[in-house]
């Protein structure tokens, strides 16, 4: 099964990265979380999700996230590591971070359980440096407008009639949902990030293509 993939390409100042990525990922997770399941025999009840408004400091934007301090910590920690790497001296100022939703395939005999992604949200970032406060103010508003468009796009995707794993039996609940949170129950997700050089990825690829073409033409 191919996972649905959404890619956002953004350009901003280094200090805006944490908030920009958090605003998008929290909006997605707000839609991709359900109330905590409580089982009573074969029946279960679904809890209620609280939500919190978050004002950004470096972007003209307010977004909504689940009221779950643990979820917030988990997300912020990963984003912060990525941001530090991206903004560090060794970085090229370009990189990407992904939020991947997956389901576990039950383990068979000796094999370990397999993780199958079903939806991936990727944010590609390119950093810019601004020289004065006027430019920063413009950038603050501009990034806010761009993120607004992205949030609207996220809600559009969420309301499509796309595939979402079915709610399983209690025994298989952990294959679909992350049950470790006490207040909410998000679909299983993970974050991963990478930095990219200005042309490192493409140069290898193009060299390979060239090699194959040359081989074939002979």
């Amino acid at each position, binding site marked *: 099964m191919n996972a649905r993939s959404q890619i956002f390409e953004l350009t901003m100042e280094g200090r805006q990265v944490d908030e920009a990525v958090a605003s998008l990922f929290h909006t997605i997770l707000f839609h991709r979380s359900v109330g905590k399941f409580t089982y009573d025999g074969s029946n279960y009840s679904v809890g209620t999700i609280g939500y919190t408004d978050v004002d950004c400091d470096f972007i003209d934007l307010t977004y909504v996230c689940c009221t779950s301090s643990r979820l917030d910590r988990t997300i912020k920690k990963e984003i912060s590591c990525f941001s530090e790497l991206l903004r560090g001296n060794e970085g090229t100022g370009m990189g990407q971070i992904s939020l991947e939703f997956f389901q576990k395939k039950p383990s068979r005999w000796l094999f370990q359980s397999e993780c199958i992604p079903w939806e991936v949200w990727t944010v590609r970032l390119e950093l810019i440096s601004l020289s004065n406060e006027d430019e920063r103010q413009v950038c603050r508003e501009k990034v806010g407008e761009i993120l607004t468009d992205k949030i609207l796009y996220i809600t559009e995707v*969420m309301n499509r009639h796309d595939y979402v794993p079915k709610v399983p039996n209690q025994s298989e609940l952990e294959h679909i949902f992350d049950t470790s949170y006490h207040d909410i129950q998000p679909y299983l997700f993970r974050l991963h990030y990478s930095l990219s050089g200005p042309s490192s990825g493409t140069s290898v690829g193009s060299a390979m293509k060239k090699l194959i073409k040359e081989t074939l033409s002979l």
Partner: protein
Amino acid sequence: MRLFIMAMKLTAQEKKELEKFTKFLILKSAQVIVNSRLGYKISTQCKSASDWFNIAVPDLPEVLADAKKALSDEVALARLPLCVEISLRTTEGDVMVLEQWCLGILPETYEYSGPFIQTVYNRMGVLLKSLVSVTRVTPAYKLSRRQGEDTYVLLYRIYVGEPMLHVLGDGYKVLRVGQLCTPIGTMHLTVSYRTKMTISPTTAGKDNSIMLKSDHFNTNLSPRHVRNKQNEDKNAVNDGMKIGAFACRKREYKPEFILPEVPLSNLLPKRKEENCEENDLINDELEHSKTSTIKDDRNGNSPSESLITSNNTTTTVSTSDDFIMKTPFASRNANTELGMFYREWQSAPPLQTFTHIPTLAEQVQDLAKQLESFESDMNKYDDMLLTLCQSPNNN
């Protein structure tokens, strides 16, 4: 018709459930929209107990009552489309509609199989979450956070019917928050919002045309022109300028106030001194100005000048024009630092010629020198004359 056919396929229980879900979607949507425009950040807590659509939406009793009133205890599905209008009201009473949130239903159906009720319920939950997210990113959200009793407040109104889009002005935008398919049609939630945030003044009067004066730029009516004219024309002065409430209208001039014959006085602006007999306060001021100007010029050739200044006790910071006003409670002493400063800059600096007058002996000596130089240069002048006369094209 198609709605009816599809609805007929539903069981009574399914219809009842769908009706109930729709009703609560309307109630909760209204709460989410109004809550987001209260002007402060919202934070609700997660809980293990179930709530509608598994989202903790704060319930405002007023909004609940208004929404229920709009539904008027009828079948919720029959009341669609239902709108929530957000408007802005200034302290002056001007009102501007900002947004129209609308929950409607379109007769588009889909082939459903199996139990759909749970799916519809879950999708309504997703739609409500999308509504929570979208309410924070439309322009009215930022306006709502800045509202206050002394500037403007946001208002809401819930009504049944198609959204009134004409009140949003030109260039309004429409966003689809989301939609969900049900056996009786596609439910959709949209927001239409204003993009031009200018309040046009309410048309109170019938004639709103701006009053124009055709002689607005007529130089004959400019204040400067009038003022100059007043200086020249005594009648204009008397008619146009008012005398202060407690000012002394009559003033006897002492002989010392009458200006003596001052050398080079013809260079100074002429005043109509003969009119001073009327002792008008304004003319009085003008005369004082004149004395002050003379003093400032520091000609040094007038023996009576010191007398004038020493006796001129009533004169304060009088000047040659009416620019500097006498400030109440200010020092009567004209020689304050500020007064000195003004006087120094209000007129051209004195000419060196007047500050250093050579004595007669010096002047004679100077003349002798000049004559000598002229005599010595006589040859040069003769040569020049000759060249001029001999020039071929002498016209």
